[in-house]
């Protein structure tokens, strides 16, 4: 008889769906193994001594058995709740956007630990209603970690340093052209305003800690337009729509 292999790991539950009559399947982001897809049996029916309350956006310690196709969770102990109740719609949408982006970009590499702490940090900010900044920060740091952050310091064509101003971000070549060279690009582009480029540079070069507060000057400057532009850029690479995004935009327009 084959012995079961057990795995103890820390993880953040980023999304879940119901499975069978009583079970749930969770996407759990782990610091070392990327996203682990795991089933928790009977979780919708009863309390169990081996399980603390489990929902999405929680940091927990898990004990699981691994097989070729499946990971079954046997124990889950709460470490930290990243979302506080009551849950606002904008915050739920933003948390779901982080989850969707994490799933879309999931790859097991040396950046996993960084992404894990990034997700944890951004979810906490969202819980404190700093959701637009958290989304933009997450987008920028994710692009950097995945090596597809656009070139915004020098012109893609002539390599001259980009001076302050509005520029077109070329989606295919992943960067901006200076005003003299902008006529040479015929690919689809996004207009980036001077302030937006400045914010991009600032966030690219700054690591904020967990205790970001709403009075931070930068959080006030980052607006939905920058998020939308970065989202278009990301969609160009992933070719995937984010379902949560549409609902976030609708709720913000009301």
């Amino acid at each position, binding site marked *: 008889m084959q012995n079961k292999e057990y795995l103890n790991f820390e993880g953040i539950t980023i999304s879940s769906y119901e499975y069978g009559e009583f079970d749930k399947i969770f996407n759990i982001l782990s610091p070392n193994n990327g996203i682990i897809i795991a089933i928790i049996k009977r979780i919708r029916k009863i309390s169990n001594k081996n399980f603390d309350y489990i929902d999405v956006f929680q940091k927990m310690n898990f004990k699981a058995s691994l097989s070729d196709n499946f990971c079954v969770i046997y124990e889950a102990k709460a470490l930290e709740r990243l979302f506080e109740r009551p849950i606002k719609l904008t915050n*739920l949408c933003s948390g*779901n956007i982080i989850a969707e982006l994490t799933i879309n970009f999931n790859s097991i590499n040396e950046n996993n630990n960084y992404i894990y702490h990034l997700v944890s940090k951004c979810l906490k900010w969202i819980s404190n209603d700093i959701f637009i900044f958290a989304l933009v920060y997450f987008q920028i740091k994710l692009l950097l970690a995945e090596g597809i952050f656009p070139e915004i310091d020098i012109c893609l064509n002539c390599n001259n340093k980009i001076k302050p101003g509005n520029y077109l971000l070329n989606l295919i070549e992943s960067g901006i052209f200076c005003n003299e060279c902008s006529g040479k690009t015929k690919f689809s582009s996004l207009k980036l305003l001077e302030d937006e480029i400045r914010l991009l540079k600032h966030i690219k070069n700054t690591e904020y800690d967990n205790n970001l507060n709403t009075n931070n000057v930068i959080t006030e400057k980052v607006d939905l337009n920058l998020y939308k532009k970065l989202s278009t850029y990301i969609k160009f690479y992933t070719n995937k729509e984010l379902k949560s995004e549409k609902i976030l935009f609708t709720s913000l327009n009301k």
Partner: protein
Amino acid sequence: MNNKNISISSVISDLINHLNQLPGIGPKTAERLAFHIIKSPESKILSLADSLIKSKQQLSFCDNCFIVTEINPCNICIDEMRDQKSICIVQDSIDAYAIESTNSYNGSYHILNGYISPINGIGPNELTISSLVKRIEKKQPTEIILATNPTIEGDATATYISNQIKSANIKISRLAVGIPFGGDLDYTDQKTLTQAFNSRQIIE
């Protein structure tokens, strides 16, 4: 070479595929159910098929509360013995049936037909929330009970609805969360136990 798909009858694989589309039914369970159906007496299966057809032909959603019903408006909405000034909001008709089976509530219902789940593309516009708001404006209820599941998404749905109707002068409550009857304190998770403490009741 795998011949499994070639040798299986297309009628059986059709049946399995259809059963597999039902919620909570995986491929294995679908296979088991399909072969159970094939082995069952014809009368039993015809009766099942008849029920399925009738459920589509004779059942609809109540125009007022959106519960699954044979008559429209439903029996609950037209029952004068019930407190129509109290509305209990639930995710699905099955939740209303669960509450009805307790005989502890004598008001009306409003079925959302789901819960807010942005990751699945379900926002407030996909639910019956706008109809609820209109119903509240028209009927002026005195009490709203939010009976959504105590999950993150259920909580977000309840919060969204309470924000939509807050301006009206209505008593809004949520179902209590705590230790189940027959439950063991030692087996209760921290979150539920904390909530149970916070919602503790004075013994009269």
